[in-house]
């Protein structure tokens, strides 16, 4: 029987080192492996014995693309352990810096990593020769997101201003005036982005996913809420470990997460959007509708539209937060260590990022658990590839391989995070 293999030794336009292997025998897909060969870095191990105030700075180093996500989840988990709840302007500033990271990370993925797949370019630099205005708009949009992070965090990558209890220093309202002007441009550019990506051709694809995201009664989720799904999950963050499990499989340096009761699930922009459409701002909802999206989106190839809608939302929300900002008297609230376990889960650009810390009376970490978004999506990505390849067997191999890579990039996987991801090998038997 004729067999073939699709093999990608080093997946490009993803963060980190992964490979893909799909085996096909006759008319049947026989194996799909997303291999993660990014070497392990053992964050959970060397966090033991570190002081609580070091944790946001250390865990930021898990990922250079979404350090804010790690800082936010770490702070919320430790504050949960110490019995602190952050409210008012400090809470708003955390939401604002997260808007910055979503804009920066989503613009990077939409323009530099994903759009070249739809338009048939190896990369955005080559795409820029034919589409210079689009690429320039993407870069400026990305820069606007980075400007928020830089202003509040000190620098774009591994910001230095986030601490347990708040910030080291908070800005005056007048420091936001130049940024607000640029964000007004960025919001228009984000609307233009939605219009642009809506013109792309999307493969027909649909699966009955279980979407998992935070849900908050009053707002589109960043830092707080309950963990909910479209199949009945509705739990507090501290019940995460009772509902989710991580498996270690031989082909991966990442752990793969699944729901104990139902198996694989889907986190990230599409899950957030499909579970929280009603919480988007009217402008973001209107942008989604005009791009032809309903309140639920189940085609992962359309994730690029959802990501663009989230950029609109993040710009809109950032402008709202800046408008109402009043400088707090203190940049942070006081924290007192106590023997306790704390849980935190926030919405990283790629989906929920869960942290759990056990601390002693001196505020030293006794035990840490960190679950990044990408390791939660690995089983779902492999599932997509099984179905996609099976229903597209007649496509020419080179094109099929590219589309398999694209199917992986739908999830904006961050392998660096997950290793603590993936390689397309379509291998002949």
């Amino acid at each position, binding site marked *: 029987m004729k067999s073939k293999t699709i093999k990608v030794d*080093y*997946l*490009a*336009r*993803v*963060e*980190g*080192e992964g490979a893909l292997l799909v085996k096909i025998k006759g008319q049947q897909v026989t194996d799909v492996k997303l291999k993660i060969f*990014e*070497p*392990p*870095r*053992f964050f*959970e*191990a*060397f966090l033991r014995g570190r*002081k609580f105030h*070091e944790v946001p*700075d*250390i865990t930021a*180093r*898990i*990922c*250079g*693309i979404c350090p804010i996500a790690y800082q936010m989840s770490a702070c919320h988990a430790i504050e949960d352990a110490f019995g602190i709840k952050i409210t008012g302007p400090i809470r708003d500033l955390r939401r604002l810096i997260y808007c910055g990271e979503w804009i920066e990370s989503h613009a*990077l993925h939409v323009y*530099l*990593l994903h759009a070249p797949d739809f338009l048939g370019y*190896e*990369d*955005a*630099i080559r795409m*820029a020769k034919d589409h210079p205005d689009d*690429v*320039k708009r993407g*870069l*400026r949009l*990305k820069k606007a997101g*980075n400007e928020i992070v830089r202003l509040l965090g*000190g*620098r774009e*990558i*591994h910001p*230095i*201003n986030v*601490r347990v209890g708040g910030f*080291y*220093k908070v800005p005056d309202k007048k420091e936001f005036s130049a940024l607000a002007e640029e964000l007004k441009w960025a919001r228009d550019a984000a609307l233009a982005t939605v219009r642009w990506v809506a013109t792309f051709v999307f493969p027909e694809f649909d699966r009955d996913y279980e979407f998992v995201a935070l849900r908050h009664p009053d707002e589109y989720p960043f830092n707080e809420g309950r963990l909910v799904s479209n199949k009945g999950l509705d739990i507090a963050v501290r019940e995460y470990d009772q509902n989710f499990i991580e*498996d*270690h*499989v031989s082909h*991966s*340096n990442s*752990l793969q997460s699944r729901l104990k009761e139902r198996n694989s699930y889907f986190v990230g922009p599409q899950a957030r959007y499909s579970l929280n459409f009603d919480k988007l701002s009217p402008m973001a909802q209107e942008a989604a509708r005009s791009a032809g999206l309903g309140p639920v989106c189940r085609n992962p190839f359309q994730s690029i539209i959802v990501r663009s809608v989230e950029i609109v939302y993040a710009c809109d929300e950032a402008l709202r937060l800046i408008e109402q900002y009043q400088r707090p008297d203190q*940049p942070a609230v006081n924290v007192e260590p106590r023997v306790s376990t704390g849980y935190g889960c926030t919405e990283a650009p790629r989906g929920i990022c869960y942290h759990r810390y056990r601390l002693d009376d001196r505020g030293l970490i006794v035990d840490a658990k960190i679950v990044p978004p990408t390791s939660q999506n690995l089983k779902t990505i492999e599932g997509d590839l099984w179905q996609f390849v099976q229903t597209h067997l007649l496509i020419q191999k080179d094109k099929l391989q*590219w589309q398999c*890579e694209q199917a992986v990039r739908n999830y904006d996987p*961050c392998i*660096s995070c997950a290793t*603590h991801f993936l390689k397309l090998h379509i291998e002949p038997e």
Partner: protein
Amino acid sequence: MALRKPKLAVWKFSSCDGCQLSLLDCEDELLAVADAVEIANFPEASRAVVKGPYDLSLVEGSITTPHDAERIHGIRRASKFLVTIGACATAGGIQALRNFKDVKEFISIVYARPDYIETLKKSTPITDHVFVDFELRGCPINKYQLVEVLSAFLNGRKPNTPPHSVCVECKQRGTVCVMVAHGTPCLGPVTQVGCGALCPAYMRGCYGCFGPKETPNTAALSAWWSGMGVSERDLMRAYRGFNAYAEPFRKESEAHEK
């Protein structure tokens, strides 16, 4: 005949991807850089791969697996100049904290099936394995210093990246000393500049992400910290951060380890 554009390659080892992201974060300079060089290998940004040899290789990340310890030699052989970028590549990174412990214990803490994991006992900088033409410090690197290094190597000159301490830059930008004025412990006196003296400007002590300055007097700084009431264990932890395995910081942390 048109001159051939220099070939630039970007390579990744164990890291968070933040330093190579710095190149994509040069939003205003990226298309100009891409015009001046041929991006021959940069998987984070492109599917296209051009074979070596390469005029300039940027290497991010530390060596932590037997496979990577082999791979770096091939990259060195294919590269006219090899520049390491970031604390992982120049000092082993935060993952070098394993170097002070038993890595087997680390694996069993994180992974249910330790037998699936292949790793070396130590996380080491690139310079421990091959000759390195220039090391660009930082966790993360400063993107303007990166553009300076690219420009320097492509034009055959030495990069201008000062080796002095963070203190000098605090004075230049007029930041009040957090240690003198507020009694906040700060690694600025022994840490190389490059970040723009950020932390003191945000009312916190420097935590050493650019690694040791040239000829740092860590013992004198530790004595100051002790005088401010900092415990031996906290001193050890302070040096044991993102550049823990850089020699001056490693030795100083060991001096305070009981």
